[in-house]
């Protein structure tokens, strides 16, 4: 959910730059890589702020009601799991934002923003569906090997793995080493995607045309414009 709310922010930001026809000017002033990094870092700052507000809320709530919910939550959660969850969240948000930026760089009209968000939503949705399979008691005991291979493969696709591993770790269905290996693999894939995205972002900011029929379909204005 956090990923979903943030991807729409970054999609709007890229759309504003593009629809203001400022792409070329901004790319001259700030390199595409720095721009992308800046946008992503500001989202992390927002996330940090949001988390701080939640913690403060629970602290004030706990102090006023005598509830020990937060203290017990942290006390009962293994510290390694907490560290992993934080790292995993960072990677999941990062990759969701990168995917969205890549799609958003095709946008030429604000009405096309959903087109940039939907692919990422589908990925996150896939993660959720796979989680149901993965966390079902029969999954590890059954011999549905094809399904297991399929799921094991798509686990490496960021951010699907990032969405699943914290719960798998908590249930002790996987070891820390396996979770860490997945994180490293996702980071490597994310780095490769980021490099490609910088190039795509730069080209997208310079382009005045809508190349993808999918994006045309999402905007009546553009459909009329490109008839």
């Amino acid at each position, binding site marked *: 959910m956090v990923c979903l709310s943030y991807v729409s922010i970054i999609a709007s930001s890229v759309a*504003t730059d593009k629809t*203001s*026809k*400022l*792409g*070329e*000017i901004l*790319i*001259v*002033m*700030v*390199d595409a890589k720095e721009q992308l990094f800046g946008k992503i870092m500001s989202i992390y700052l927002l996330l940090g702020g949001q988390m701080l507000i939640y913690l403060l809320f629970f602290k004030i709530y706990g102090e006023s009601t005598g509830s020990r919910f937060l203290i017990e939550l942290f006390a009962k959660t293994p510290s390694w799991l907490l560290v992993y969850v934080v790292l995993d969240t960072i990677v999941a948000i990062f990759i969701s934002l990168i995917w969205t930026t890549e799609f958003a760089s095709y946008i030429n009209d604000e009405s096309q923003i959903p087109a940039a968000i939907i692919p990422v939503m589908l990925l996150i949705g896939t993660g959720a569906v796979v989680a149901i399979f993965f966390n079902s008691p029969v999954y590890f005991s059954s011999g549905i090997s094809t399904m297991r291979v399929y799921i094991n493969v798509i686990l490496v696709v960021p951010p699907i793995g990032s969405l699943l591993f914290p719960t798998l770790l908590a249930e002790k269905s996987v070891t820390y080493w396996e979770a860490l290996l997945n994180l490293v693999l996702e980071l490597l894939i994310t780095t490769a995607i980021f490099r490609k995205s910088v190039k795509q972002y*730069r080209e997208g900011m*310079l382009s*005045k045309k809508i190349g993808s029929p999918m994006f045309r379909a999402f905007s009546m204005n553009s459909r009329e414009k490109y008839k």
Partner: protein
Amino acid sequence: MLELNSVRKRFKRFAAVENLSFKVKEGEIVSLIGQNGAGKSTTFHMILDFFQPDKGQILWDSQVMDWRFRRKIGYMPEERGLYQKESIKEQLIFFAALHGMKKREAEKILMYWMEKLNVVGKPSDKVESLSKGNAQKIQLIACLMFSPKLLILDEPFSGLDPVNADLLIEAILEAKARGTMIIFSTHNMVNVEKLADYIIMLSHGETVLQGYVDDVYKEFGRLSVEVEGYSDISKLKTLPGIERLNQDNNGPIHIRLQSESDGKLLFNKVTSEGYLPVFNQHYPSLEEIFKYEVEVNR
């Protein structure tokens, strides 16, 4: 100094720029002239390192051009754009900050240029409330306010009335006087004549003509003549050395000579019949040269 050496850029089979070479020195204005699709914007995009040339080199002070030099460049693209919902001041201070300028310094310079370019409106006005001409001036200010070393202006005069075009010319000349290297593209040859030191005419990516403006004129010679007050055009048609002539609605007669010396014969002929208010043998205008080159290279 900016230097392009035998630069080529192709998009699949389409040759956008072929074998383009030129230099821009400090305090010099170079104009790229050409029809749509001639390769002007592609040249700008290569200088800005948006993409690399397939062949050749772009050097800035003998170093290969890369994104690090971009912050020294003021760029006004053909497609104008500003954040419509933001005020002039907020927006330009943001752009100035991206170039490392302090807020107070940026505010001062913004006021100077708004006054200089006669921008109608206050710094607190939102961009959406500005006329097209004023928004264009604001965009030029965004390029000028951090004193760029290189100024690239893609069709800066499009959509401007003559009064505002003159204000823009003044601003560009002020940047030139400060030592800024300037490259601009335009279809309006009158503004090229007012501004450019050096011109490059492009046609379908090929350089068809280039040189210092005075040298280009001399290369073509004083082959154009305008005559007013002479009525019998048929007598001139039979004269030797006349390449072509035409007259607009009994107005001035426009003549193209085969060589400069033919002008004397023509002068003697038209003045032998009495008073003549205008006989002007001159270099062809850049517009005439441009049309000629486009025709020859078609």
